[in-house]
């Protein structure tokens, strides 16, 4: 029982899925464990496929109780302090952001939808954001919502006493919140920060009651969350379950959901860390939704035909293998290109990942702003081309099928970190590489050890993945200043790319920004610094009675219009 099944493990690891950890544990922002928001993955996003903003179409009778099984305990219920995506999934039912960010009509693209702010403007250099606030909003504790509450919330996130784990980083170069009048405020940054609109909708910045913040203090608030959302906190039995009831006064919800109060009377988040425990409880009727079931259970549930699957695609960088561009033989572009052509991601996803995840072909997932479709078309599976490139680079095939040059074998040093679900997919990649004449040695190390190996550059292929709502996340893993101590495990040093990313984050105009990021994606893929493997999908398995779930663009589901009748 101590071995975590791969899917759950993903969620907890800091790396990749790690980045998305299960909504909870060290799964980074992950949902299951501790994942921290930045790195951990969490429950990702939105509805996939056909329905844009509604995961499960239609709607049923109002009333009733919905119990959802989650895979670990939240670290806190304060979205500003949490390091877990799991907490954000929960806190989004109790808090509203200034502006929501949802999938666009028909499920493609995205759109901003007014939340607690009626409208906003952004200064041309993206350093000052001015919000006009709604005047009819009340917190669960009766406090009136106004500019004071916005200031209290943002100041709370940067307060060192809050010990914010993911919100602080997501906020970037925050300077202050200026109260212009009771219902107008400005959020001011010390330098341009074009990623802010995405970040503020990602969950960390749900507006908190200033009365409650004062009453319970910067850490006490995490046990007594008070927001303006469609559900009100009732109680949390530590490690067991979290009870919420509908907020009957709610009328400021996203217009696309009808703005009014939630349809459910009660919403319960039940902690069931064991993966099969969640599936069993779903089958016995104790749960109506189970998050992050292991891929084999999802496959079984689909076969049984009894349950529905709501798959939320991830936003950020897919799970993949950074290629070290400084260590031979991968310092040669032709060798790196040969690696890219040798990997069949579609087969990988189908054979190794039970088809639950999606094949990845670029440095960002398709729903991430700045994603470049052109970059994803650069390499299609083509072993013949791999062979040709390696021939051209002077690596000749020997008797055992292994290539060599000047007496040296074409050997790759592969280093992975443990518990993130990389082992099997990487084995698949290595077997593909062996077919074209590589030989490889794979080591699996604890995360801290692997991180040190990656920074020192002893690897040819490493492991990575990152969950983030804004393409500025590329900065953390391709910027040349992140080689020795950060996440630039490709050891990629390109001043032009550094400058393009910096320029993009100074550009308030969305179209121009995305164009810059797309150019970055194409450059990175042309330089072949990363083998994308799979876009992590977050699975929510639901009973047929559950209807009206919606998904957000940053990995969560919303319960505004959910029903169980």
């Amino acid at each position, binding site marked *: 029982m101590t071995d975590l099944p791969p899917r759950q493990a993903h969620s907890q690891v800091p790396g990749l899925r790690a*980045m998305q950890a299960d909504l909870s544990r060290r799964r980074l922002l992950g949902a299951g464990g*501790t994942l921290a928001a930045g790195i951990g993955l969490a429950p990702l996003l939105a509805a996939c496929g056909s329905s844009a903003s509604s995961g499960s179409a239609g709607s049923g009778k109002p009333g009733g109780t919905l119990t959802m099984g989650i895979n670990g305990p939240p670290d806190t219920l304060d979205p500003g302090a949490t390091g877990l995506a799991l907490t954000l999934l929960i806190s989004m039912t109790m808090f509203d952001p200034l502006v929501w960010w949802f999938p666009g009509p028909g499920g493609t693209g995205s759109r901003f939808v007014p939340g607690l702010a009626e409208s906003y403007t952004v200064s041309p250099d993206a350093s000052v954001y001015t919000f006009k606030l709604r005047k009819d909003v009340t917190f669960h504790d009766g406090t009136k919502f106004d500019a004071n509450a916005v200031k209290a919330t943002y100041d709370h996130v940067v307060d060192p006493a809050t010990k914010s784990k993911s919100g602080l980083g997501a906020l970037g170069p925050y300077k202050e919140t200026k109260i212009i009048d009771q219902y107008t405020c400005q959020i001011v940054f010390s330098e341009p920060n074009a990623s802010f609109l995405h970040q503020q909708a990602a969950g960390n910045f749900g507006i908190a009651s200033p009365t409650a913040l004062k009453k319970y203090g910067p850490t006490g608030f995490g046990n007594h969350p008070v927001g303006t959302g469609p559900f009100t906190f009732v109680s949390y*039995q530590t490690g067991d379950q979290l009870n919420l009831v509908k907020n009957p006064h709610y009328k400021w919800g996203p217009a696309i959901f009808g703005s009014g109060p939630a349809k459910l009377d009660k919403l319960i988040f039940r*902690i069931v860390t*064991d993966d*099969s425990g969640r599936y069993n409880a779903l*089958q016995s009727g104790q749960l109506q939704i189970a998050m992050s079931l292991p891929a084999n259970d999802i496959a079984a549930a689909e076969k049984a035909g009894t349950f529905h699957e709501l798959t939320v695609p991830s936003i950020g960088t897919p799970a993949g293998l950074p290629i070290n561009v400084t260590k031979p033989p991968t310092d040669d572009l032709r060798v790196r290109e040969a690696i890219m052509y040798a990997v069949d991601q579609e087969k990988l996803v189908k054979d190794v990942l039970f088809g639950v995840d999606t094949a990845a072909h670029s440095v960002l997932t398709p729903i991430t702003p700045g994603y470049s479709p052109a970059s994803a078309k650069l390499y299609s599976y083509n072993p013949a081309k791999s062979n040709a490139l390696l021939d051209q680079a002077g690596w000749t095939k020997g008797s055992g099928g292994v290539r060599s040059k000047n007496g040296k074998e074409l050997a790759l040093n592969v280093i992975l970190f443990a518990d993130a679900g990389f082992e099997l997919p990487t084995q698949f990649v290595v077997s593909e590489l062996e077919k074209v004449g590589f030989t490889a040695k794979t080591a699996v190390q604890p995360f*801290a050890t692997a991180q040190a190996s990656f920074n020192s550059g002893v690897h040819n292929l490493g492991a990575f993945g990152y969950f983030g709502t804004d393409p500025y996340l590329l900065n953390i893993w391709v910027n040349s200043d992140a080689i020795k101590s950060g996440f630039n495990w490709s050891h990629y040093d390109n001043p032009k790319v550094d400058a393009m990313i910096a320029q993009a984050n100074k550009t308030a105009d969305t179209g121009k920004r995305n164009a810059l990021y797309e150019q970055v994606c194409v450059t990175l893929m042309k330089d072949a610094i990363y083998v994308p493997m799979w876009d992590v999908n977050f699975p929510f398995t639901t009973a047929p009675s559950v209807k009206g779930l919606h998904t957000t663009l940053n990995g969560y589901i919303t319960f505004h219009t959910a029903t169980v009748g």
Partner: protein
Amino acid sequence: MGFVLRRLATAVPVIIGITIIAFLLIHLVPGDPAKIILFGTEATPAQLENLRRQLGLENSLWQQYFSFIGQLLHGNLGTSYLTQNSVAHELLSRAPDTLELTGAAVLVAIVVGVPLGMLGGVFPGSLADRAARAVSFLGVAVPYFFLALLLVLLFSVRLHLLPAISNGSISGLILPAVSLGWGYAAILTRLVRGRLIEEYRSEYVKSARARGCTEWRVLLRHALRNSSIPAITTIGLQFGNILTGAAVTEVIFGRPGLGSFLATAISNKNIPVVQGAIVLIGIGYVLINLIIDLIVGAVDPRTRAAGLA
């Protein structure tokens, strides 16, 4: 009284040993504990520095240990890295759930195991004995976590009779208690059966029968009483295993007890919680064995004189 004091005195070094092991944990994890704890949180260097100071990492190992013990004596087990809440409070709020489960499992073990063992011991070779041996054989052979999954599959998923995950009621306690207690019931069955058969051959049973005691009196007053001592000792010795089993059982049934808390804390590298749980569970184990010793002493005066149990 002297016996009780002697037993208490031997518990002290054991508890000190437990605290040393729990304390050393944080230093056994490779790397800078502060960095490991904050990994993935986009921590600033100032946050790292703060945490190092908070953990007292710049002091010598001895200083750190004595301050750890000092805190412990005040009932302070530190602050959970994950929730920023008091570890002692979190552990104590979960302890009742684990006590409930282990208590229920021990009850299942006694209520099922002892009568089955008596049946076999009194009528060795009978059909009932063979049935009881088959049941106990399965109990010893099938791991509790596998049994738990089978029971859930049958009673929750198929028949919808009992909850698959605990729901705070007695019905939610049945499956976990049975799956955890069954293996110990099996051990007790075999033990009681074997001892009874032996006791029935002894002189004092013959003399009791010769005195005209009823068979019930021979069984309950004489043979069973003497057979119970190894049974009680075994329950005490097995208690550590029951606690370990409770951890896994809690995870399977989604119970918010110490075990599932510890499992989550380990995967989160939440060291203060792991340390606190080790100390609490370790002391609990020592106390249970102390109590068992005292019970055995009460049942069998011979052990008091010998100072062993």
